[in-house]
């Protein structure tokens, strides 16, 4: 019998803490999953280094264990010097502290970055990994062919319902960025899988701004494309925008414990841009006929 599922999202169960920096606190619960998110960072320019320094400072209070990279990891070339200047040097303190980086590919990335051990891609342009109660799906949105779609469907299908499911990739399905905006064609192919198999949250970059999108069909979407690049004034806040920021570089920190996802977005200057708590949507299987 084909088991169908419906997604029942109770917006009562979603709450945001519109907190100021001095009010927001990560719970730092034992066994929680703690990570940072950066996108469009690999410029090698001063702002990237300043964001990296801010990440190091923030880690003293919020000891994140790994970083998800939302693409455009190395702009402008893939020589050893590029890797050094645009990744190894700025994030050296984090690398030295044992923080792992898990990369997705942007349109400025040479696909052979998959062989770079510090990106933890294990030779694949799309892959999955698990941390605690969170399963991550890292996609190659530059090249969403039938093979990758089959792989994604199979992976989501096999994951079951117990864990958080988080997808990340470069091109945003929802974005109010003036430069690129939503990748509607990509959305038409992968959003149905996200809905069907209960993906909880999605992180992307590409638009050089920060945006938290209102939950779309029960899924939380973030655009974090300003961890090195910045399109100042590049966010045209729209009906899909819950919050956004486009006047400085940013990065995100996330803690997942049980059914709650805590997040805080900081600017290069260390100011809080956004923060809150998202509760995992309630999903119940549909009655079977």
């Amino acid at each position, binding site marked *: 019998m084909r088991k169908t599922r419906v997604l029942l999202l109770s917006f009562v169960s979603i709450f945001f803490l519109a907190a100021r920096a001095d009010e927001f606190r990560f719970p730092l619960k034992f066994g929680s999953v703690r990570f940072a998110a950066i996108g469009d960072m690999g410029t090698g320019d001063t702002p990237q280094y300043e964001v990296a320094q801010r990440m190091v400072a923030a880690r003293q209070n919020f000891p994140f264990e790994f970083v998800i990279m939302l693409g455009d990891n190395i702009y402008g070339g893939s*020589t050893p010097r590029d890797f050094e200047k645009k990744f190894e040097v700025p994030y050296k303190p984090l690398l030295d502290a044992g923080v792992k980086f898990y990369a997705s590919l942007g349109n400025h990335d*040479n696909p052979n970055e998959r062989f770079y051990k510090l990106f933890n891609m294990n*030779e694949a342009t799309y892959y999955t990994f698990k941390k605690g109660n969170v399963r991550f799906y890292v996609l190659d949105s530059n*090249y969403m062919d*039938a093979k990758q779609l089959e792989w994604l469907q199979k992976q989501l299908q096999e994951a079951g319902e117990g864990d958080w499911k988080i997808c990340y990739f470069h091109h945003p399905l929802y974005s109010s960025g003036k430069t690129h905006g939503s990748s509607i064609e990509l959305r038409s192919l992968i959003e149905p899988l996200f809905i069907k198999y209960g993906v909880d949250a999605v992180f992307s970059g590409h638009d050089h701004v920060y945006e938290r999108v209102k939950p779309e069909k029960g899924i939380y979407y973030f655009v974090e494309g300003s961890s090195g690049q910045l399109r100042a004034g590049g966010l045209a806040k729209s009906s899909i925008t819950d919050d956004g920021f486009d006047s400085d570089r940013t990065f995100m920190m996330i803690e997942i414990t049980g059914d709650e996802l805590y997040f805080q977005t900081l600017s290069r200057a260390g100011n809080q841009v956004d923060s809150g708590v998202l509760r995992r949507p309630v999903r119940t299987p549909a009655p079977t006929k």
Partner: protein
Amino acid sequence: MQTKRWPRHASQAMLLAAVLLFERAAIVGGQNAAPPSSKEEAKNAAEFKEFLDRVQAYVNLHKTVASSLPTLKPTPLPEKINAHEQALARKIREARPHAKRGDIFSEKSVAAFRRAVRDEFEGAQGRLARKTIQQGEPLKEVHVRINEPYPDGVPFTTVPPTLLLRFPKLPDEVAYRIVGRDLILQDVEANLVIDSIHEIFPPAI
């Protein structure tokens, strides 16, 4: 001797493409045309067969050449990745020194690829495909040549995913790319341009 993988892969790809295109049609408001009929599929399969045979022959060559080099495993040393990429490209160039346009994209397949692009861009969903390419930072001033590397530092224009579903599925060693109005076939690991179809895409993208 070439491996005869075409029928199974091609039929799987066509089936999935048909299903996904059909689902997508519903999602974008029924704008899309119906999935290809079995008659159209058969015609496509016939037209793409020679192309896929040639792709497989190329992949066999790639594998032979790659086997003469140390296997590239994940490494913290980017210079090793660069050296491998360049050595592989050099040896492939040596193995096909006179490679030229049309060596892999057969004449029949070019017609089928052009038809697929036309159907994609002229259909109701053409607007979305154009937008995908525009969002992927299309390359207008870049010219690539067969048997030369894809230029370092130049972005990869996003290939519209629905267009990929219309194209025959490729082995992992090669990928479709878009440069300007041309469709490029790239050896991914060697970062080498191995064939192209000139001006297959409409001018206004």
